[in-house]
């Protein structure tokens, strides 16, 4: 077995993919981070203090992890869902009773979304209470605030999609709040968001596009900036 592994990690195919052997020495461990697309986000060495569970509580990483879970379950849900007033609710019922594991899929997405809002908020609290917003990380805190707002908007736009009473009136309450912005600006924002004066077909399509394309893409962009800056400022 050992001999086989040794042969395997020396083979041309393995080397063409990983460029180094198994991470058994500090040199190959460093290479494992350095030459890996996913791990190159991290430095090859980190402070022992900053990877303690009880320092970060893993909250930033968990937010990113939840985002991955939500993208995967969300993509699967998109296969069964049509954003139209006629179809949306029936598709929810199909997910519940017809699609294999449809209810489970929807549960994962729903609870994951709630958890994400809470965990991103907790992450923000952790960063505040450890004073991790101080220079040179001021602007990354601002990027974090933007990501928090995007998380809430993602959760909120997804809230309308089931097109049940909970969704319809939850969104109506929210968009009525937007209308309170003075000088007619609120009316305009609400009109752009809903594609009309009330929550209807246009609103459903707009929330769908925001939820499945515009907001996730913005989130990925800002996450990229966030992680890149964490790394540049000497974090993990």
């Amino acid at each position, binding site marked *: 077995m050992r001999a086989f592994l040794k042969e395997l990690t020396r083979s041309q195919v393995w080397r063409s993919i990983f460029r180094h052997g198994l*991470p058994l020495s*500090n040199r190959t461990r*460093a290479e*494992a*981070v350095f030459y890996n697309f996913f*791990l190159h986000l*991290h*430095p*090859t*060495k*980190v*402070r*022992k*203090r900053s*990877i303690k*569970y009880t320092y970060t509580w893993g909250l930033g*990483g*968990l937010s990113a992890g*939840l985002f991955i*879970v939500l993208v995967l379950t969300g993509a699967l849900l998109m296969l069964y869902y049509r954003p139209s*007033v006629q179809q949306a*609710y029936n598709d929810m019922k199909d997910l519940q009773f017809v699609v294999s594991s449809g*209810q*489970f899929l929807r*549960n*994962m*997405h*729903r*609870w994951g979304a709630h*958890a994400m809002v809470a965990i991103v908020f907790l992450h923000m609290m952790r960063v*505040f*209470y450890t004073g991790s*917003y*101080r*220079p040179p*990380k*001021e602007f990354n*805190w601002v990027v974090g*605030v933007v990501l928090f707002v995007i998380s*809430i908007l993602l*959760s*909120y736009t997804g809230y309308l999609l089931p*097109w*049940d*009473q909970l969704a*319809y*009136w*939850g969104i*109506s*309450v*929210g968009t009525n*709040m*937007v*209308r*309170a*912005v*003075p000088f007619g600006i*609120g009316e305009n924002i609400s009109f752009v968001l809903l594609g009309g004066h009330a*929550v*209807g077909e246009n609103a459903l399509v707009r929330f769908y596009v925001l939820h499945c394309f515009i907001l996730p893409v913005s989130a990925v962009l800002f996450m990229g900036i966030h992680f890149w800056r964490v790394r540049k400022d000497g974090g993990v």
Partner: protein
Amino acid sequence: MTADFRLEKNSDAKKVPRRLAFIKGRTAARVKKSDEEMVMTVPHLVVREAIAFMVMVIVLATLSLVFNAPLEWVANPGHTPNPAKAPWYFLGLQELLHYFPPVVAGVVLPTLVVLALVAIPYFQVNVKLEGLWKENRRVTLLALVGGASVLAIVLLAYKVYAMLVPTVFVLGCMLLPYFLRRETGVIAWLGRRPLTWWIMTWFVIIVLVLTAIGILFRGPEWSWTWPWKEIY
């Protein structure tokens, strides 16, 4: 003690090309060695990340097996549920809407909160993080009591007891170290908290209280209902 270097004052680039400072003392031009203990990312960090992610997925999957996501009757614009509640993370705001005019609760306060969050790292007082009572104890006391009184009067005028009670509680905790000077223990620890810490803690408590009231204690017509009777 003399400085180890002095700045080159001549700004003529021809006479002093690329020279910024003379090093006089025995300061070597090298980065100070960090006394922080370092570990390899592989395996220490990567394994921790993998464990955290897997535990999270297991917890989420278990929750999803036990609890079903809610799905009510199909949307009916003609039938308003009573009460019509927003998602839980907006119930703090909806609770504010119950007390203040819509412009204040729905626009001014949320905007102020986001702006305040953005501004945190740009105030020197938030960067230094010195204890609230470290200097000018008298002035601090007057400013604190004055500011809190104004806030309390506004809250009383609008009958926002849900914010008034936590505000008075936090103010009490802030004032404790002023009147009871201790070297060790909880009061001493409170005394070392900076102003920023107090403001954020006050904000978090208010958010939690308002959201909890919105989720658990509000029923038809946004009236007060006890959660053990019914949760709407």
